[in-house]
């Protein structure tokens, strides 16, 4: 995956470039809004990571210009502002996701991978399959190895989101955002309990676990 990082803090950007390289992606770095626009319009990127406060051209303006140039790739906004309604304005300006500083790299990585995948399709499939676990989005049927599994509506949405992003790390905050539509950070392990409940329904009686806990990052569905 090719990623453009537009960030004026050189140390943070350097760290990001290295970490993304280690995760198997290539990353370019632009230090201000104008060069970000230059890079973004002359080369193809799968994902943009854009700091909100940039010299020369503000992050939100940069996004607007890139969109005006017809750039369709998903854009993630990084911001030190990061509270309550900042995300709303950020997303309204054309960003696809929003992360406030300080953030864990694992959270950022999980989010851009999901973003890139979403933009390359997969959103509109009517059914998902991971190993022998199948989920039908239209009939809400879930079965594993031919055995039907009964899920609560919220459990279904949780599994649906995990399966849509199968093979990718999904963090707790991403789950809270997409399944419950809340963006606050629960102070306790609320999400973990939901996961273990779901796990007891889909994994417990089977030999091969499909729902994995990724330490320090989140969860992943993988066969």
């Amino acid at each position: 995956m090719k990623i453009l990082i537009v960030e004026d803090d050189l140390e943070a950007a350097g760290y990001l470039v290295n970490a993304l390289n280690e995760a198997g992606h290539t990353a370019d770095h632009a230090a201000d809004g104008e060069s970000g626009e230059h890079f973004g319009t002359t080369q193809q990127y799968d994902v943009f990571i854009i700091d909100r406060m940039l010299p020369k051209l503000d992050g939100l303006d940069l996004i607007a210009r890139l969109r005006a140039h017809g750039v369709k790739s998903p854009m993630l906004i990084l911001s030190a502002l990061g509270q309550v309604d900042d995300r709303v304005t950020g997303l309204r300006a054309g960003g696809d996701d929003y992360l406030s500083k300080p953030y864990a790299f694992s959270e950022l990585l999980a989010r851009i991978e999901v973003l890139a995948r979403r933009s390359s399709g997969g959103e509109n499939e009517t059914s998902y399959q991971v190993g022998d676990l199948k989920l039908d989005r239209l009939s809400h049927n879930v079965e594993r190895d031919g055995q039907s599994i009964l899920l609560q509506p919220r459990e279904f949405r949780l599994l649906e989101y995990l399966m849509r992003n199968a093979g990718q790390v999904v963090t707790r905050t991403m789950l809270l955002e997409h399944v419950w539509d809340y963006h606050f950070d629960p102070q306790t392990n609320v999400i973990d309990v939901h996961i273990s409940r779901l796990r007891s329904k889909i994994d417990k009686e089977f030999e091969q676990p499909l729902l994995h806990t990724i330490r320090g990052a989140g969860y992943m569905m993988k066969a």
Partner: protein
Amino acid sequence: MLQVRRLLRVTAVRLSLIYTLIFGLFAVGLIYYVSESTVGALYRQTIDHIRDEVSELQLIYRRGNIGRLVRAMELRSRAPGSGVYLITDPLGRVIAGNIQELDVRLLQTAGWRDRPFAYRRLGSALSDEDDFAIAQVFILPGGMRMLVGRDTGEPARFQSIISSSVMVAIGAMVAFGLLAWLLIGRRALVRIDTVSQSVSRILDGDLKERLPLSGTGDEFDRLSERMNALLQKISLLNEGLKQVSDNIAHDLKTPLTRLQNRAEAALRTDATKEEMRDAMAQMLDESNALIRTFNALLMISRVEAGSVPLEFSELDLKQVIEDVVELYEPLAEEAGVSLQVEPQAECHITANRELIGQAVANLIDNALKYGSSTTSEGAMITISVSEIESGAVISVADNGTGIPDGDRERVKERFVRLDKSRTRPGSGLGLSLVSAVAKLHKGELLLEGNAPGLRAILKLPVQRT
């Protein structure tokens, strides 16, 4: 001199000076006008008198001869009054009249001498002063000169009376103005000085100091009262800030120390790779918790400052509560707490969904953490929402140990954690955020006893946006 210059800088003094000046100019103008017109009228009257007399004398002259005229002049000269008469021969020698001395040039040509001229009256030799008169001069056949006029002593005296009274009046006015100005100005100056001295003391750091009030309720007092209210607000905010920064310093030091200790311990021992990874993961958790605390703090201060324009929308509290309860339900079950929502109708208010959701989550989180420990009959959290006239009331009640009466206000403050909960995880920010969210929605957070346990009540008024 310095005192005067300072006085001049006082508004009251400047204003009274300007008023005195303007009023004085008007007064002078008025008096000048009155005196000019009166004196002018007096002069005109004098000239008319002279004309009348001249025409009488002309009649006498025409009827008789020069002898009769001289006699008539002599008669008139002796009569008491202000008439001035003189007849001379062509050489300037006096034939008749009541003038003793006169500038002879005045007699050289015929015509009006209507500017007062100096002369000396016959018989007034005792005084040194000249008299003044205006007159008409004729040249009679044979070169004789005749002067008929009137003394102008009266108009001149009148004029001098007026001008001296003007002087006195203006002098008195200026003196009085200056006096009033000094009194008013000094009073204002004293008041302002005391205020600015108080302000200097406050600037020097004594935020407890207040501006003095005179008790008259005048504009100075009103201003001072408003300033005092402002100071009160500032010192409250300041105190809050101080307490918060103390708390932050204290409460962030603890996890930072733990973080440091872990890193040092991991570096010191000959740890295996696996142990290293474990230590790192623990450190990561610790720093994530720190970040969460920071975010919560930031959120609270932003919500409290009300500086962010928040998105308010119409939302159904019942739905919000069901969502959050659903989120916490597995956790409660795991902790052996039953989470009950009292049946309720939809309850629509205008609010920020994200913040209300988080507030309810914090209340439930709190009830789970501190409300579930003691009872034998099984811990239970009851959540309800009801609509009252002025808005909505969300209640989260537990049957745990509760909070002692004296601590209920305190726990809403940032980082305040009661001693018995110090050992358990938590940032001490949960209720502060709920309280801030309540304030932002112009509502309030009440903590009441639930015998046993705690009942947290979030009151949200109907928002009109």
